Protein backbone atom coordinates (compact mmCIF):
# COMPACT_ATOMS: atom_id res chain seq x y z
CA UNK A 1 0.00 0.00 0.00
CA UNK A 2 2.45 2.62 1.15
CA UNK A 3 5.58 0.56 1.69
CA UNK A 4 8.41 2.57 0.30
CA UNK A 5 11.39 0.40 1.14
CA UNK A 6 13.45 -0.42 -1.89
CA UNK A 7 15.63 -2.90 -0.04
CA UNK A 8 15.27 -6.44 -1.33
CA UNK A 9 13.58 -8.93 0.99
CA UNK A 10 16.11 -11.74 1.39
CA UNK A 11 15.68 -15.49 1.87
CA UNK A 12 17.34 -15.33 5.30
CA UNK A 13 18.14 -19.02 4.91
CA UNK A 14 19.34 -20.39 8.26
CA UNK A 15 18.17 -17.29 10.14
CA UNK A 16 14.53 -18.05 10.98
CA UNK A 17 13.42 -18.54 14.59
CA UNK A 18 13.08 -22.19 15.59
CA UNK A 19 9.59 -23.56 16.13
CA UNK A 20 8.87 -25.74 19.15
CA UNK A 21 8.56 -29.40 18.12
CA UNK A 22 5.25 -31.22 18.34
CA UNK A 23 4.09 -34.77 17.65
CA UNK A 24 1.58 -33.23 15.26
CA UNK A 25 4.20 -31.36 13.22
CA UNK A 26 6.99 -34.00 13.19
CA UNK A 27 5.86 -35.78 9.98
CA UNK A 28 5.57 -32.42 8.22
CA UNK A 29 9.13 -31.52 9.22
CA UNK A 30 10.46 -34.93 8.15
CA UNK A 31 8.86 -34.59 4.70
CA UNK A 32 10.05 -31.01 4.37
CA UNK A 33 13.62 -32.18 4.92
CA UNK A 34 13.08 -34.21 1.71
CA UNK A 35 11.64 -31.17 -0.05
CA UNK A 36 8.03 -32.32 0.13
CA UNK A 37 5.31 -29.93 1.32
CA UNK A 38 2.48 -31.68 3.13
CA UNK A 39 -0.91 -30.64 4.31
CA UNK A 40 -3.67 -32.57 5.99
CA UNK A 41 -7.07 -33.51 4.67
CA UNK A 42 -10.02 -35.06 6.46
CA UNK A 43 -10.79 -38.66 5.59
CA UNK A 44 -14.42 -38.12 6.63
CA UNK A 45 -15.51 -34.76 5.16
CA UNK A 46 -12.77 -34.47 2.54
CA UNK A 47 -11.74 -30.92 3.37
CA UNK A 48 -8.12 -29.78 3.55
CA UNK A 49 -7.19 -27.44 6.40
CA UNK A 50 -4.34 -25.42 7.89
CA UNK A 51 -2.50 -25.52 10.29
CA UNK A 52 -2.34 -29.34 10.18
CA UNK A 53 -4.20 -31.16 12.96
CA UNK A 54 -4.78 -34.79 13.88
CA UNK A 55 -8.50 -34.06 14.12
CA UNK A 56 -10.37 -32.17 11.39
CA UNK A 57 -11.26 -28.59 12.45
CA UNK A 58 -14.47 -28.82 10.42
CA UNK A 59 -15.89 -32.15 11.66
CA UNK A 60 -13.38 -33.66 14.16
CA UNK A 61 -12.91 -36.56 11.74
CA UNK A 62 -9.60 -38.34 11.20
CA UNK A 63 -7.14 -36.59 8.92
CA UNK A 64 -4.29 -37.80 6.71
CA UNK A 65 -1.22 -36.22 5.16
CA UNK A 66 -1.04 -35.53 1.45
CA UNK A 67 1.53 -33.79 -0.70
CA UNK A 68 0.52 -30.31 -1.73
CA UNK A 69 1.49 -28.35 -4.84
CA UNK A 70 3.24 -25.50 -3.04
CA UNK A 71 1.36 -23.09 -5.30
CA UNK A 72 -0.75 -20.28 -3.92
CA UNK A 73 -1.68 -16.64 -4.05
CA UNK A 74 -1.07 -13.78 -1.63
CA UNK A 75 -4.15 -13.17 0.56
CA UNK A 76 -2.64 -10.40 2.68
CA UNK A 77 0.70 -9.25 3.98
CA UNK A 78 2.56 -6.54 5.80
CA UNK A 79 6.01 -5.27 5.00
CA UNK A 80 8.18 -4.66 8.06
CA UNK A 81 10.49 -2.19 6.38
CA UNK A 82 12.08 -0.99 9.62
CA UNK A 83 13.60 -4.40 10.31
CA UNK A 84 17.08 -5.09 9.01
CA UNK A 85 16.88 -6.89 6.71
CA UNK A 86 13.26 -6.04 5.82
CA UNK A 87 10.81 -8.85 6.44
CA UNK A 88 7.20 -9.71 5.70
CA UNK A 89 4.50 -11.68 7.42
CA UNK A 90 1.70 -12.86 5.18
CA UNK A 91 -1.25 -15.10 4.57
CA UNK A 92 -1.04 -17.23 1.43
CA UNK A 93 -4.04 -19.10 0.05
CA UNK A 94 -2.88 -22.51 -1.16
CA UNK A 95 -4.10 -23.98 -4.44
CA UNK A 96 -5.64 -26.74 -2.31
CA UNK A 97 -7.84 -24.20 -0.49
CA UNK A 98 -6.59 -23.37 2.99
CA UNK A 99 -4.92 -20.05 3.81
CA UNK A 100 -1.74 -20.25 5.91
CA UNK A 101 0.39 -17.85 7.89
CA UNK A 102 3.84 -17.53 6.31
CA UNK A 103 6.42 -15.06 5.04
CA UNK A 104 7.11 -13.80 1.54
CA UNK A 105 10.81 -13.90 0.71
CA UNK A 106 13.42 -13.38 -1.97
CA UNK A 107 11.73 -10.53 -3.79
CA UNK A 108 11.58 -6.79 -4.19
CA UNK A 109 8.97 -5.06 -1.99
CA UNK A 110 7.33 -3.82 -5.18
CA UNK A 111 6.57 -7.41 -6.18
CA UNK A 112 4.13 -7.80 -3.28
CA UNK A 113 0.43 -7.55 -4.11
CA UNK A 114 -2.75 -9.25 -3.00
CA UNK A 115 -3.64 -12.00 -5.46
CA UNK A 116 -0.11 -12.40 -6.77
CA UNK A 117 0.86 -16.03 -7.50
CA UNK A 118 3.54 -17.43 -5.21
CA UNK A 119 5.49 -20.68 -4.97
CA UNK A 120 6.65 -22.47 -1.85
CA UNK A 121 10.30 -22.27 -0.91
CA UNK A 122 11.70 -24.03 2.14
CA UNK A 123 14.20 -21.97 4.07
CA UNK A 124 15.99 -23.15 7.19
CA UNK A 125 15.57 -21.99 10.75
CA UNK A 126 18.55 -21.41 13.00
CA UNK A 127 18.68 -25.09 13.96
CA UNK A 128 18.27 -26.18 10.32
CA UNK A 129 14.56 -27.07 10.43
CA UNK A 130 12.72 -26.32 7.15
CA UNK A 131 10.35 -23.34 7.27
CA UNK A 132 7.66 -23.04 4.54
CA UNK A 133 7.93 -19.58 2.96
CA UNK A 134 6.76 -18.33 -0.41
CA UNK A 135 8.24 -16.24 -3.21
CA UNK A 136 6.37 -14.43 -5.97
CA UNK A 137 6.44 -16.16 -9.33
CA UNK A 138 6.55 -14.74 -12.86
CA UNK A 139 8.98 -12.06 -11.84
CA UNK A 140 11.80 -10.81 -13.98
CA UNK A 141 14.34 -11.88 -11.42
CA UNK A 142 12.80 -15.29 -10.68
CA UNK A 143 15.49 -17.85 -10.07
CA UNK A 144 15.40 -21.62 -9.76
CA UNK A 145 14.13 -22.68 -6.33
CA UNK A 146 16.97 -22.85 -3.84
CA UNK A 147 18.50 -26.32 -3.66
CA UNK A 148 18.57 -26.39 0.15
CA UNK A 149 15.58 -28.36 1.32
Amino acid at each position, binding site marked *: *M*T*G*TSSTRIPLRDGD*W*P*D*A*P*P*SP*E*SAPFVAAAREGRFLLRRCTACG*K*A*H*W*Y*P*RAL*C*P*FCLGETAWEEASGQGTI*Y*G*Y*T*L*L*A*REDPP*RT*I*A*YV*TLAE*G*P*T*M*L*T*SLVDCEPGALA*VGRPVQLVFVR*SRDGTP*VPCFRPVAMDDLREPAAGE
Partner: protein
Amino acid sequence: MTINGRAHIVGAYEHPTRKAPDKSVAQLHAEAAAGALADAGLSKDDVDGYFCAGDAPGLGPLAMADYLNLTLRHLDSTDIGGASYIAHVAHAAQAIATGKCSVALITLAGRPRSAGHSGTAARPVIADAPDSPWETPFGPTTVNLYAMCAQRHGHEFGTTPEQLAWIKVAASHHAQHNPHAMLRDVVSVEDVLASPMVADPLHRLDCCVVSDGGGALVVARPEIARSLKRPLVRVMGAGEAYKGQRGGEVDLTWSAARLSGPAAFAEAGVSPADIKYASIYDSFTITVLMQIEDLGFCAKGQGGRFVADGNLISGTGRLPFNTDGGGLCNNHPANRGGITKVIEAVRQLRGEAHPAVQVGNCELAVATGIGGLLGSRHGAATLVLGRE
Protein backbone atom coordinates in the same frame (compact mmCIF):
# COMPACT_ATOMS: atom_id res chain seq x y z
CA MET B 1 -32.65 -15.20 31.56
CA THR B 2 -31.28 -11.75 30.78
CA ILE B 3 -28.78 -9.59 32.65
CA ASN B 4 -30.58 -6.43 31.55
CA GLY B 5 -31.31 -4.47 34.72
CA ARG B 6 -29.93 -7.17 37.02
CA ALA B 7 -26.71 -5.35 38.00
CA HIS B 8 -25.17 -1.88 38.08
CA ILE B 9 -21.65 -0.55 37.78
CA VAL B 10 -21.27 1.30 41.07
CA GLY B 11 -17.55 1.99 41.17
CA ALA B 12 -14.95 2.87 38.53
CA TYR B 13 -11.39 4.01 38.95
CA GLU B 14 -8.49 4.59 36.57
CA HIS B 15 -5.09 4.64 38.21
CA PRO B 16 -3.46 8.00 37.42
CA THR B 17 0.05 6.62 36.99
CA ARG B 18 1.47 6.02 33.53
CA LYS B 19 4.92 4.91 34.74
CA ALA B 20 5.40 3.02 37.98
CA PRO B 21 8.87 1.47 38.17
CA ASP B 22 8.79 1.51 41.96
CA LYS B 23 5.48 -0.30 42.41
CA SER B 24 4.67 -3.99 42.14
CA VAL B 25 1.96 -5.23 39.79
CA ALA B 26 -0.02 -6.52 42.77
CA GLN B 27 0.24 -3.11 44.43
CA LEU B 28 -1.16 -1.43 41.31
CA HIS B 29 -4.07 -3.92 41.27
CA ALA B 30 -4.74 -3.16 44.93
CA GLU B 31 -4.52 0.61 44.49
CA ALA B 32 -6.98 0.38 41.61
CA ALA B 33 -9.30 -1.79 43.71
CA ALA B 34 -9.17 0.69 46.59
CA GLY B 35 -9.94 3.52 44.20
CA ALA B 36 -12.99 1.81 42.70
CA LEU B 37 -14.37 0.79 46.10
CA ALA B 38 -13.93 4.36 47.40
CA ASP B 39 -15.68 5.66 44.29
CA ALA B 40 -18.60 3.34 45.01
CA GLY B 41 -18.70 4.08 48.71
CA LEU B 42 -18.11 0.43 49.57
CA SER B 43 -15.43 -1.34 51.57
CA LYS B 44 -13.25 -4.32 50.82
CA ASP B 45 -15.40 -6.47 53.08
CA ASP B 46 -18.46 -5.83 50.90
CA VAL B 47 -16.80 -7.67 48.00
CA ASP B 48 -17.86 -11.30 47.54
CA GLY B 49 -16.94 -11.82 43.87
CA TYR B 50 -13.56 -11.21 42.23
CA PHE B 51 -12.68 -11.05 38.54
CA CYS B 52 -9.28 -10.66 36.88
CA ALA B 53 -7.38 -11.89 33.82
CA GLY B 54 -3.88 -12.81 32.79
CA ASP B 55 -2.29 -9.56 33.93
CA ALA B 56 -3.00 -10.52 37.56
CA PRO B 57 0.19 -11.99 39.03
CA GLY B 58 0.06 -15.57 40.29
CA LEU B 59 -2.26 -18.49 39.53
CA GLY B 60 -5.54 -17.22 38.10
CA PRO B 61 -7.33 -15.06 40.66
CA LEU B 62 -5.78 -16.75 43.70
CA ALA B 63 -2.69 -14.64 44.40
CA MET B 64 -4.50 -11.32 44.02
CA ALA B 65 -7.49 -12.51 46.07
CA ASP B 66 -5.00 -13.44 48.79
CA TYR B 67 -3.03 -10.17 48.48
CA LEU B 68 -6.30 -8.26 48.90
CA ASN B 69 -7.38 -10.74 51.61
CA LEU B 70 -10.86 -11.03 50.13
CA THR B 71 -13.64 -13.30 51.38
CA LEU B 72 -15.22 -14.65 48.20
CA ARG B 73 -18.00 -16.89 47.03
CA HIS B 74 -17.40 -16.34 43.33
CA LEU B 75 -14.16 -16.16 41.27
CA ASP B 76 -13.64 -15.76 37.51
CA SER B 77 -10.36 -15.35 35.63
CA THR B 78 -11.64 -15.56 32.06
CA ASP B 79 -8.86 -14.30 29.81
CA ILE B 80 -9.62 -13.06 26.30
CA GLY B 81 -6.78 -10.58 26.32
CA GLY B 82 -7.56 -6.89 26.52
CA ALA B 83 -11.29 -7.49 26.09
CA SER B 84 -11.45 -9.59 29.27
CA TYR B 85 -12.66 -6.82 31.59
CA ILE B 86 -15.61 -5.98 29.35
CA ALA B 87 -16.56 -9.66 29.51
CA HIS B 88 -15.98 -9.61 33.28
CA VAL B 89 -18.68 -6.97 33.73
CA ALA B 90 -21.10 -9.28 31.91
CA HIS B 91 -19.95 -12.31 33.89
CA ALA B 92 -20.34 -10.32 37.11
CA ALA B 93 -23.87 -9.36 36.11
CA GLN B 94 -24.63 -13.03 35.38
CA ALA B 95 -23.22 -14.09 38.75
CA ILE B 96 -25.21 -11.39 40.52
CA ALA B 97 -28.40 -12.27 38.62
CA THR B 98 -28.07 -15.90 39.68
CA GLY B 99 -27.26 -15.06 43.29
CA LYS B 100 -23.64 -16.19 43.19
CA CYS B 101 -22.37 -12.86 44.50
CA SER B 102 -23.62 -9.38 45.38
CA VAL B 103 -20.62 -7.10 44.95
CA ALA B 104 -18.10 -7.97 42.25
CA LEU B 105 -14.64 -6.43 42.02
CA ILE B 106 -12.78 -6.41 38.67
CA THR B 107 -9.13 -5.35 38.53
CA LEU B 108 -6.46 -4.86 35.90
CA ALA B 109 -2.92 -3.57 36.29
CA GLY B 110 0.52 -3.89 34.81
CA ARG B 111 3.71 -2.06 34.06
CA PRO B 112 4.83 -2.96 30.54
CA ARG B 113 6.33 0.52 30.11
CA SER B 114 8.72 0.07 33.00
CA ALA B 115 9.49 -3.47 31.84
CA GLY B 116 10.25 -2.25 28.30
CA HIS B 117 7.55 -4.38 26.61
CA SER B 118 6.02 -3.33 23.32
CA GLY B 119 3.82 -4.60 20.54
CA THR B 120 6.65 -4.80 18.05
CA ALA B 121 8.47 -7.48 20.04
CA ALA B 122 8.11 -11.15 19.14
CA ARG B 123 5.45 -12.72 21.31
CA PRO B 124 6.66 -15.30 23.79
CA VAL B 125 6.62 -18.82 22.37
CA ILE B 126 4.12 -20.96 24.23
CA ALA B 127 5.45 -24.44 23.46
CA ASP B 128 2.18 -26.33 23.75
CA ALA B 129 0.04 -23.73 21.98
CA PRO B 130 -1.10 -25.73 18.94
CA ASP B 131 -0.26 -22.92 16.50
CA SER B 132 3.32 -22.40 17.78
CA PRO B 133 4.98 -25.15 15.67
CA TRP B 134 3.45 -23.58 12.55
CA GLU B 135 3.77 -19.85 13.22
CA THR B 136 6.77 -19.16 15.46
CA PRO B 137 9.35 -18.85 12.63
CA PHE B 138 7.39 -16.04 10.97
CA GLY B 139 7.65 -13.73 13.96
CA PRO B 140 4.00 -12.87 14.49
CA THR B 141 3.80 -9.77 16.67
CA THR B 142 0.89 -7.75 17.89
CA VAL B 143 1.40 -4.95 15.42
CA ASN B 144 2.09 -7.01 12.32
CA LEU B 145 -0.99 -9.19 12.78
CA TYR B 146 -3.20 -6.09 13.06
CA ALA B 147 -1.39 -4.50 10.11
CA MET B 148 -2.35 -7.38 7.83
CA CYS B 149 -6.01 -6.69 8.64
CA ALA B 150 -5.56 -3.04 7.70
CA GLN B 151 -3.79 -4.03 4.50
CA ARG B 152 -6.53 -6.47 3.47
CA HIS B 153 -9.27 -3.98 4.44
CA GLY B 154 -7.62 -1.43 2.18
CA HIS B 155 -7.44 -3.96 -0.64
CA GLU B 156 -11.09 -5.01 -0.41
CA PHE B 157 -12.75 -1.71 0.46
CA GLY B 158 -10.32 1.03 -0.51
CA THR B 159 -9.74 2.09 3.09
CA THR B 160 -6.85 4.54 3.08
CA PRO B 161 -4.10 5.39 5.59
CA GLU B 162 -5.61 8.90 5.71
CA GLN B 163 -8.94 7.50 6.87
CA LEU B 164 -7.27 5.37 9.53
CA ALA B 165 -5.33 8.44 10.69
CA TRP B 166 -8.59 10.26 11.42
CA ILE B 167 -9.17 7.84 14.30
CA LYS B 168 -5.94 8.94 15.95
CA VAL B 169 -6.74 12.58 15.22
CA ALA B 170 -10.09 12.25 17.03
CA ALA B 171 -8.46 10.55 20.02
CA SER B 172 -5.89 13.32 20.25
CA HIS B 173 -8.61 15.98 20.23
CA HIS B 174 -10.04 14.30 23.34
CA ALA B 175 -6.70 13.64 25.05
CA GLN B 176 -5.78 17.33 25.12
CA HIS B 177 -8.33 17.73 27.92
CA ASN B 178 -7.07 14.79 30.00
CA PRO B 179 -4.24 15.83 32.36
CA HIS B 180 -3.29 12.17 32.88
CA ALA B 181 -3.01 11.34 29.16
CA MET B 182 0.42 10.28 27.92
CA LEU B 183 0.02 12.11 24.61
CA ARG B 184 -1.86 15.41 24.92
CA ASP B 185 -0.84 17.15 21.71
CA VAL B 186 -3.51 17.41 19.04
CA VAL B 187 -2.23 15.74 15.88
CA SER B 188 -3.26 16.01 12.24
CA VAL B 189 -3.73 13.39 9.54
CA GLU B 190 -0.43 14.60 8.11
CA ASP B 191 1.30 14.03 11.47
CA VAL B 192 0.10 10.43 11.54
CA LEU B 193 1.21 9.75 7.98
CA ALA B 194 4.59 11.36 8.65
CA SER B 195 5.29 9.16 11.67
CA PRO B 196 7.52 6.14 11.03
CA MET B 197 5.95 3.15 9.27
CA VAL B 198 5.96 0.29 11.77
CA ALA B 199 4.10 -2.42 9.83
CA ASP B 200 2.67 -1.30 6.52
CA PRO B 201 0.12 0.36 6.47
CA LEU B 202 0.26 1.13 10.22
CA HIS B 203 2.42 4.05 11.32
CA ARG B 204 3.68 4.67 14.82
CA LEU B 205 0.76 7.02 15.48
CA ASP B 206 -1.70 4.31 14.39
CA CYS B 207 -0.53 2.37 17.47
CA CYS B 208 -1.60 2.74 21.09
CA VAL B 209 0.74 3.89 23.82
CA VAL B 210 2.62 1.55 26.15
CA SER B 211 1.84 2.57 29.71
CA ASP B 212 1.97 1.34 33.27
CA GLY B 213 -1.12 1.63 35.40
CA GLY B 214 -4.38 -0.07 36.07
CA GLY B 215 -8.07 0.22 36.66
CA ALA B 216 -10.89 -1.36 38.59
CA LEU B 217 -14.66 -1.67 38.48
CA VAL B 218 -17.27 -2.59 41.07
CA VAL B 219 -20.51 -4.22 39.90
CA ALA B 220 -23.35 -4.70 42.38
CA ARG B 221 -26.94 -5.81 42.84
CA PRO B 222 -29.49 -3.08 41.95
CA GLU B 223 -30.66 -2.82 45.60
CA ILE B 224 -27.08 -2.13 46.70
CA ALA B 225 -26.54 0.31 43.84
CA ARG B 226 -29.64 2.29 44.86
CA SER B 227 -28.39 2.50 48.47
CA LEU B 228 -25.22 4.26 47.31
CA LYS B 229 -24.73 7.91 46.45
CA ARG B 230 -23.40 7.55 42.91
CA PRO B 231 -25.38 7.99 39.66
CA LEU B 232 -26.88 4.69 38.53
CA VAL B 233 -25.23 2.95 35.57
CA ARG B 234 -27.18 -0.11 34.52
CA VAL B 235 -25.79 -3.13 32.72
CA MET B 236 -28.26 -3.62 29.85
CA GLY B 237 -26.74 -6.12 27.50
CA ALA B 238 -23.59 -8.03 26.71
CA GLY B 239 -22.09 -10.17 24.01
CA GLU B 240 -18.96 -12.26 23.81
CA ALA B 241 -17.40 -14.00 20.83
CA TYR B 242 -14.24 -15.45 19.35
CA LYS B 243 -12.70 -15.68 15.91
CA GLY B 244 -9.66 -17.58 14.73
CA GLN B 245 -8.20 -18.76 11.46
CA ARG B 246 -11.21 -21.04 10.98
CA GLY B 247 -9.22 -24.06 9.84
CA GLY B 248 -7.65 -22.05 7.05
CA GLU B 249 -10.77 -20.20 5.90
CA VAL B 250 -9.06 -16.94 6.81
CA ASP B 251 -11.01 -13.70 6.37
CA LEU B 252 -9.31 -10.65 7.86
CA THR B 253 -12.07 -8.18 6.99
CA TRP B 254 -14.29 -8.77 10.01
CA SER B 255 -13.81 -9.28 13.73
CA ALA B 256 -15.61 -11.27 16.40
CA ALA B 257 -17.36 -8.01 17.31
CA ARG B 258 -19.67 -8.89 14.42
CA LEU B 259 -21.06 -11.52 16.78
CA SER B 260 -20.62 -9.87 20.20
CA GLY B 261 -22.06 -6.52 19.13
CA PRO B 262 -25.48 -7.63 17.85
CA ALA B 263 -25.85 -9.96 20.84
CA ALA B 264 -25.28 -7.05 23.23
CA PHE B 265 -27.66 -4.72 21.39
CA ALA B 266 -30.34 -7.43 21.25
CA GLU B 267 -30.15 -8.10 24.97
CA ALA B 268 -30.30 -4.38 25.71
CA GLY B 269 -33.19 -3.91 23.28
CA VAL B 270 -31.47 -1.02 21.53
CA SER B 271 -29.81 -0.41 18.18
CA PRO B 272 -26.51 1.25 17.23
CA ALA B 273 -28.43 4.37 16.19
CA ASP B 274 -29.54 4.82 19.83
CA ILE B 275 -25.97 4.96 21.19
CA LYS B 276 -24.79 8.38 22.36
CA TYR B 277 -21.21 7.47 23.22
CA ALA B 278 -18.92 4.56 22.29
CA SER B 279 -15.79 3.30 24.02
CA ILE B 280 -14.04 1.28 21.33
CA TYR B 281 -10.84 -0.58 22.15
CA ASP B 282 -8.16 1.19 20.15
CA SER B 283 -5.06 -0.99 20.26
CA PHE B 284 -4.58 0.29 16.73
CA THR B 285 -6.61 2.54 14.47
CA ILE B 286 -7.73 -0.47 12.40
CA THR B 287 -9.16 -2.09 15.55
CA VAL B 288 -11.56 0.84 15.92
CA LEU B 289 -12.56 0.92 12.28
CA MET B 290 -13.26 -2.82 12.22
CA GLN B 291 -15.43 -2.69 15.36
CA ILE B 292 -17.40 0.33 14.14
CA GLU B 293 -18.39 -1.69 11.08
CA ASP B 294 -18.95 -4.93 12.94
CA LEU B 295 -21.16 -3.32 15.59
CA GLY B 296 -23.29 -1.88 12.81
CA PHE B 297 -22.55 1.83 13.16
CA CYS B 298 -22.00 1.69 9.40
CA ALA B 299 -22.01 -0.97 6.70
CA LYS B 300 -19.03 -3.28 6.22
CA GLY B 301 -16.46 -1.52 4.10
CA GLN B 302 -17.79 1.96 4.89
CA GLY B 303 -15.72 2.39 8.07
CA GLY B 304 -13.07 4.51 6.38
CA ARG B 305 -15.60 7.04 5.19
CA PHE B 306 -17.42 6.90 8.54
CA VAL B 307 -14.41 7.82 10.68
CA ALA B 308 -13.06 10.54 8.38
CA ASP B 309 -13.45 14.28 8.84
CA GLY B 310 -13.75 14.22 12.61
CA ASN B 311 -16.85 12.05 12.84
CA LEU B 312 -15.56 10.50 16.09
CA ILE B 313 -14.82 13.82 17.83
CA SER B 314 -17.12 14.70 20.72
CA GLY B 315 -19.20 17.79 20.03
CA THR B 316 -18.85 17.69 16.27
CA GLY B 317 -18.97 14.08 15.15
CA ARG B 318 -21.83 11.63 14.89
CA LEU B 319 -20.22 9.00 17.12
CA PRO B 320 -18.11 10.44 19.98
CA PHE B 321 -15.58 7.78 20.96
CA ASN B 322 -12.87 7.33 23.60
CA THR B 323 -13.27 10.77 25.13
CA ASP B 324 -10.42 10.10 27.59
CA GLY B 325 -8.02 9.89 24.65
CA GLY B 326 -8.23 6.09 24.58
CA GLY B 327 -5.34 3.73 24.23
CA LEU B 328 -4.08 5.77 21.29
CA CYS B 329 -3.32 8.79 23.48
CA ASN B 330 -4.27 8.32 27.12
CA ASN B 331 -3.45 4.97 28.63
CA HIS B 332 -3.10 1.27 27.81
CA PRO B 333 -2.26 -0.32 31.17
CA ALA B 334 -0.87 -3.85 31.04
CA ASN B 335 -1.17 -3.66 27.23
CA ARG B 336 -4.86 -4.43 27.82
CA GLY B 337 -7.34 -1.68 27.08
CA GLY B 338 -10.69 -3.17 28.04
CA ILE B 339 -11.11 -1.78 31.51
CA THR B 340 -10.40 1.83 30.56
CA LYS B 341 -13.10 1.50 27.92
CA VAL B 342 -15.69 0.65 30.56
CA ILE B 343 -14.38 3.35 32.92
CA GLU B 344 -14.79 6.16 30.37
CA ALA B 345 -18.25 4.89 29.41
CA VAL B 346 -19.20 5.07 33.11
CA ARG B 347 -17.84 8.64 33.31
CA GLN B 348 -19.93 9.64 30.29
CA LEU B 349 -23.12 8.06 31.65
CA ARG B 350 -22.58 9.74 35.03
CA GLY B 351 -21.92 13.07 33.34
CA GLU B 352 -18.44 13.07 34.86
CA ALA B 353 -16.33 13.16 31.70
CA HIS B 354 -14.27 16.30 31.10
CA PRO B 355 -16.73 19.13 30.26
CA ALA B 356 -15.00 19.70 26.92
CA VAL B 357 -15.80 16.14 25.81
CA GLN B 358 -18.91 15.28 27.85
CA VAL B 359 -21.69 14.09 25.56
CA GLY B 360 -24.96 15.91 26.22
CA ASN B 361 -27.77 13.80 27.69
CA CYS B 362 -25.63 10.69 27.49
CA GLU B 363 -28.11 8.03 28.60
CA LEU B 364 -26.87 5.11 26.48
CA ALA B 365 -23.30 3.98 25.84
CA VAL B 366 -21.43 1.01 24.47
CA ALA B 367 -18.04 -0.36 25.48
CA THR B 368 -16.50 -2.87 23.11
CA GLY B 369 -13.14 -4.54 22.77
CA ILE B 370 -10.96 -6.95 20.85
CA GLY B 371 -8.48 -9.05 22.84
CA GLY B 372 -5.62 -11.12 21.52
CA LEU B 373 -4.56 -10.78 17.90
CA LEU B 374 -7.05 -9.48 15.34
CA GLY B 375 -5.15 -11.17 12.49
CA SER B 376 -4.96 -14.67 13.96
CA ARG B 377 -6.95 -15.46 17.11
CA HIS B 378 -8.95 -12.94 19.09
CA GLY B 379 -11.85 -12.55 21.47
CA ALA B 380 -14.44 -9.80 21.48
CA ALA B 381 -16.70 -8.48 24.19
CA THR B 382 -19.39 -5.81 23.93
CA LEU B 383 -21.34 -4.15 26.70
CA VAL B 384 -24.34 -1.85 26.50
CA LEU B 385 -24.71 0.43 29.51
CA GLY B 386 -27.48 2.85 30.38
CA ARG B 387 -28.02 5.70 32.81
CA GLU B 388 -31.01 5.45 35.11
